[in-house]
């Protein structure tokens, strides 16, 4: 248990190849010329087409219809990721504060209503959700894209869990020091939740960035396409073509995975902590 064992290293190296291999191949292949890929298959190594391909995808034809660039889609992805994370944190922190720190008659009723949203993932109520957003005239808007995703209660639960772990004496000491509900929230809970907020932000950013089903339904105007939403578009041009633009399709995939991947790696420690502790 204290020694490094050869067998474990072998298992881990094979595991790393299993997990990272496809991504590396996807990246290296994207640097080749499509004709060469079509002839020889996916390739390891450096194709030399890197700059051209990525420049084209980013600044010319990200949506593959020529109407929207990869840069704009990245922008949209950021808006969705950040908007979703921030919205969720604000809304759920306030709700969790009410549930944990206030004595009021309907407290447990609200708790159960919020809880019930965990029972029905978006995937099982897509059609009616779509119709509601349509009736509100929110198709092809950022609001329509982001707000319905915030409806689920996961964030509220994370914060409820965290607030409950804050010792009661802290509130008591603060009350003796003259802090009312608003003061306590701003002077105590927000600063104390900093790590928690950061961890949830990271998780929610990745979740938001990676949304697929909802953007497919809500955005038909390419100017609102996110990178992940654009992946479906990539595929459609792929089908018709004689020699599909494999390189550009893969470049899009790499672009779509890079920001959330970087966030997860850079904030690895905080990310793991947030993920594991919030699920308890």
């Amino acid at each position, binding site marked *: 248990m204290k020694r490094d064992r050869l067998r474990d290293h072998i298992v881990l190296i094979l595991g790393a190849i299993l997990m990272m291999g496809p991504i590396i191949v996807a990246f290296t292949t994207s640097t080749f010329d499509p004709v060469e890929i079509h002839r020889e298959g996916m390739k390891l190594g450096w194709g030399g087409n890197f700059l051209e391909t990525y420049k084209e995808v980013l600044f010319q034809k990200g949506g593959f219809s020529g109407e929207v660039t990869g840069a704009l889609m990245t922008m949209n992805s950021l808006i969705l990721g950040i908007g979703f994370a921030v919205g969720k944190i604000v809304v759920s922190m306030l709700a969790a504060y009410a549930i944990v720190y206030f004595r009021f008659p309907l407290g447990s009723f609200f708790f159960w209503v919020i809880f019930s949203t965990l029972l029905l993932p978006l995937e099982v109520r897509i059609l009616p959700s779509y119709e509601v957003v349509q009736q509100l005239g929110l198709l092809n808007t950022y609001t329509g894209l982001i707000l319905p995703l915030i409806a689920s209660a996961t964030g509220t639960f994370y914060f409820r869990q965290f607030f409950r772990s804050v010792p009661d004496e802290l509130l008591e000491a603060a*009350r*003796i020091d003259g802090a009312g509900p608003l*003061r306590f929230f701003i002077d105590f809970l927000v600063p104390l939740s900093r790590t928690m907020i950061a961890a949830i932000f990271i998780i929610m950013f990745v979740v938001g960035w990676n949304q697929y089903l909802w953007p497919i339904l809500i955005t038909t105007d390419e100017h609102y396409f996110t990178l992940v939403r654009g992946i479906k578009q990539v595929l459609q041009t792929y089908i018709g073509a004689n020699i599909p633009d494999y390189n550009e399709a893969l470049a899009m995939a790499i672009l779509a995975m890079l920001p959330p991947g970087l966030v997860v790696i850079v904030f690895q420690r905080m990310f793991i902590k947030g993920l594991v502790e919030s699920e308890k």
Partner: protein
Amino acid sequence: MTEKTLVLTDVVKRYPNGALAVDRVNVDVNAGELVVFVGPSGCGKSTLLRMVAGLETVTDGSIELAGRVVNDLEPAERDIAMVFQNYALYPHMSVRKNLSYGLKNRGLPADEINRRVEEAAEILEIGAFLDRKPSQLSGGQRQRVAMGRAIVRHPAIFLFDEPLSNLDARLRNRMRVEIRKLQRRLNTAMIYVTHDQVEAMTLADRIVVLNGGRVEQIGSPAEVYGDPASTFVASFIGAPPMNLIEVGIEAGRAMRDGVALPLPPSHDGALPAKAIWGLRPERARVGDDGNGIPFTIDVVEELGASRLLHGRIGGAEFTLQQDASAPPPSQATTLLIDPRDVHLFDAETGKAL
């Protein structure tokens, strides 16, 4: 007549689930006095303290602080300061901010806040780490900061809720002395809650012994120790506790398994047939000439300055504390007891007779 800082009149706490935590308690705290609430866990001592602080609502009765009834006031409006068992320091604020936060909320001018913080820092010798966070402090330092937060408020009364229970034994002894010195120096009334009878004895001007939400006895340490009002007080105050033996009273003598035990001189007359006979462990001597009450020794504990002899009188367990300089007795010996040291309690109610 001395001025009263705090007057508790028929204070009752009943929780919504019906549990009675505090049952008609009447206690006064005089100006500058240090009163200790002591009792086992669940006796209501902390609840009572928190009611004074305003952290628990008052079911019935009145709490009068510095001449006004404070039952319905917010904690911040009560002119109290509290030190919590786990200190409840604000983990995200520096020591300085911890001390000044409450003053700022009260709208004190900045220079007055600074003056008070510096003053408290000097008294408690925490000036060197005013800019550190609580997590960077040792247990003893945190304790001082918690007291500092109380001092800067210049309250009418200090409320200390088991403030030393998170410290190790050595530090606890030192802080105990410091708290006493501090309280003398500030000359401010204080309620100090503890389950540790040593702390109660050493700190208190007066002790309030609580049991099951009721007051068992109120008195100076000497009174509570020397003249316990009940078997509960007798066994809770003093270590090792008072020896308590169930006896039958026959013809003016206390009998246990055929052994006669002396009765206190004032109680020759009307006594019930059964009683509980009590004697402090240090109040018996080993008889040197075979006279006295037979005592069989099972275990001897050497404590350094003194020695504990655990054994039996008749069938009943009995502990004797003697000076370590006395010669260790043989296994079977006899005890000499001064009847004036003997306590008698009612067998049913446990109250002193």
